[in-house]
């Protein structure tokens, strides 16, 4: 399945960035009530290993007859061949996506966006703070770092969820706690089941247990719901991590992923090309985010 197209009097053959390749759903199961895990591989197996990406990049996913939407890759490029996603049911496209079964096909094109600046992060201490759906891009980053462990300094992973049942990849992260080459701190806002053996409290409570960190040499990646940024960013900044070393992802409506359709524009930036990963310094200087229209939800 080569996405070649012939245009211009058959003279010129070129790639069409809008045409998805067909991928097959290999596994699909629920992570929480409204979030599903998807694992997919190209229908054309020869293509499988050719798909290269950087953690934090996203792809445009198509369900035939329904449309397209952007999703971050949740798996790591260090484990090629398959792509993994964690997707929340939000509306029309995601509903149709959830209706697909294992072995059925969907369309994927990409990867798009800048992704995390991996090379610049190498050699640095890494702090990752995740909440809710923010785990989608962060898991890719975390797995990548763990697979290239020697290239990075100290790694800290903080993760908060509302309840144990809401914690995406719970078992996977609980296992990470066993490792001695990273610090993995997990918390839930509350637990009615009594089964949760770990911390209880909002994600910021984890900062108390952090101990001293080498702030100037740390790159932080923070993704989560808007309300989380509001509190977490304060803590991270107070730790002394420079604002341009704090990374986050922005969400905007997208139709093309390649800077043509206009929807994701923020002033002169296109989230799909210049982002979705931005530094906290970038974000607080975006007038549209902090200007008149500002409210809790603006950053997402």
């Amino acid at each position: 399945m080569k996405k070649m197209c012939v245009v211009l009097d058959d003279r010129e053959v070129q790639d069409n960035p809008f045409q998805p390749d067909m991928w097959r759903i290999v596994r699909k199961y629920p992570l929480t009530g409204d979030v599903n895990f998807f694992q997919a591989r190209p229908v054309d197996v020869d293509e499988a290993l050719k798909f290269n990406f950087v953690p934090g990049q996203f792809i445009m996913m198509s369900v035939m007859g329904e449309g397209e939407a952007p999703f971050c890759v949740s798996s790591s490029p260090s484990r090629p061949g398959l792509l993994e996603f964690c997707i929340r049911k939000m509306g029309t496209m995601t509903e149709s996506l959830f209706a697909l079964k294992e072995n059925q096909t969907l369309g994927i094109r990409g990867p798009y966006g800048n992704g995390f600046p991996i090379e610049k992060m190498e050699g640095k201490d890494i702090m990752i703070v995740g909440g809710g759906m923010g785990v989608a891009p962060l898991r890719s980053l975390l797995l990548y770092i763990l697979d290239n462990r020697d290239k990075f300094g100290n790694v800290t992973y903080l993760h908060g969820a509302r309840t144990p049942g809401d914690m995406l990849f719970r078992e996977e992260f609980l296992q990470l706690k066993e490792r001695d080459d990273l610090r993995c701190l997990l918390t839930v806002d509350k637990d009615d089941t009594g089964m949760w053996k770990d911390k209880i409290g909002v994600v910021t409570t984890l900062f108390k247990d952090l101990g001293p960190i080498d702030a100037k040499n740390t790159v932080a990646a923070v993704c989560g719901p808007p309300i989380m940024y509001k509190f977490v960013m304060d803590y991270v900044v107070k730790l002394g991590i420079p604002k341009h070393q704090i990374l986050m992802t922005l969400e905007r409506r997208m139709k093309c992923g390649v800077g043509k359709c206009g929807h994701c524009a923020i002033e002169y930036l296109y989230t799909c090309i210049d982002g979705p990963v931005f530094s906290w310094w970038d974000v607080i200087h975006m007038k549209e985010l902090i200007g008149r229209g500002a409210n809790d939800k603006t950053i997402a």
Partner: protein
Amino acid sequence: MMILKMKKEDLPAFLDSVKEWGELWGPVKKGEKVTYAKVDALSQMDLKATRTIIPPKKFLYPQRFTMFDFDQDGYVERKGDVPKRILFGIHPCDIHGILIMDKLFLENYKDPYYAERREKTLILGHSCIPDDKCMCIATNTDFIAEGFDLFFTDLKMFYLVWVGSTKGHDLVRMRPDLFSRDLDKNDILNYTEYRKWKTAQFKSNVDFTGMPDVFELGYNSPVWDQLGDKCLSCGQCTMVCPTCNCYNQVDEVELGSLEGTRDRFWDSCMFREYSLVAGGHNFRDKRADRLRLWYTHKLQAYIGEFGKPACVGCGRCVATCPVDINVVTVSTALKEQEVGK
């Protein structure tokens, strides 16, 4: 580039012969206004008209078109549904608009749909006489040096014809007998005279200098709210602006199957749905914020990126918005911190 000379009476014959290359399109009267329509001959065109209702962008990315088909196995490219066209009578501002679109659609992920149409559309420019709404002089787009295949400057007795591309050359070669290279001192004088004359025709005295600063300073100005109260969100401004490119896309299927098409159609940042994401959050719920995005894009952000405005001064927004919101009124309102009547 090359400049040739053509007798005015030879134009019909020339246009007649270029039809061999593709369909001939030109400005044609529609009520009081003009639109580009398919024609058989020059006689059907209205070359005196200033601006068409929508710019020639409709040829390069149509209002709504099918990108590709899909079926059970995947996506299949559409072939052969783009005709070859020759557009005659395109004015400098619109060619500038096309150049801005070229940048967007052809650089950094080339859009094959735009590229194919651009390739199959020949631009035959024509000089124009500005009316009271034209302001290309303020955007520095009143003359054009690139982006066309041929450009005809009407010097009353004859045409000076700029050849801007190899395809333009090919057209000339179809009727070389109609062109001459005998240019002399008088032609230069005539042309200089023409440029002076054209510059003197402008009636609008808008001035966009300093607009990026005014926008920056006026970011939180209540003027935006006042404009937002007036705006109908009808989207006309974005449809007629030669440098508006936003689009939306939708899948359609055949009845009783999962085969279908993915279609693309013009969208507008003036619509509420434009910045709405799943879950109901809208990044630009207020009309004021949407208007600000539009005008910031035209008169501030683009200048910051590329050193020139994304407005080519065609005057279409001035000739279209029922409630009088356009580059002139908005920039004036921002400068004077007051919305005109």
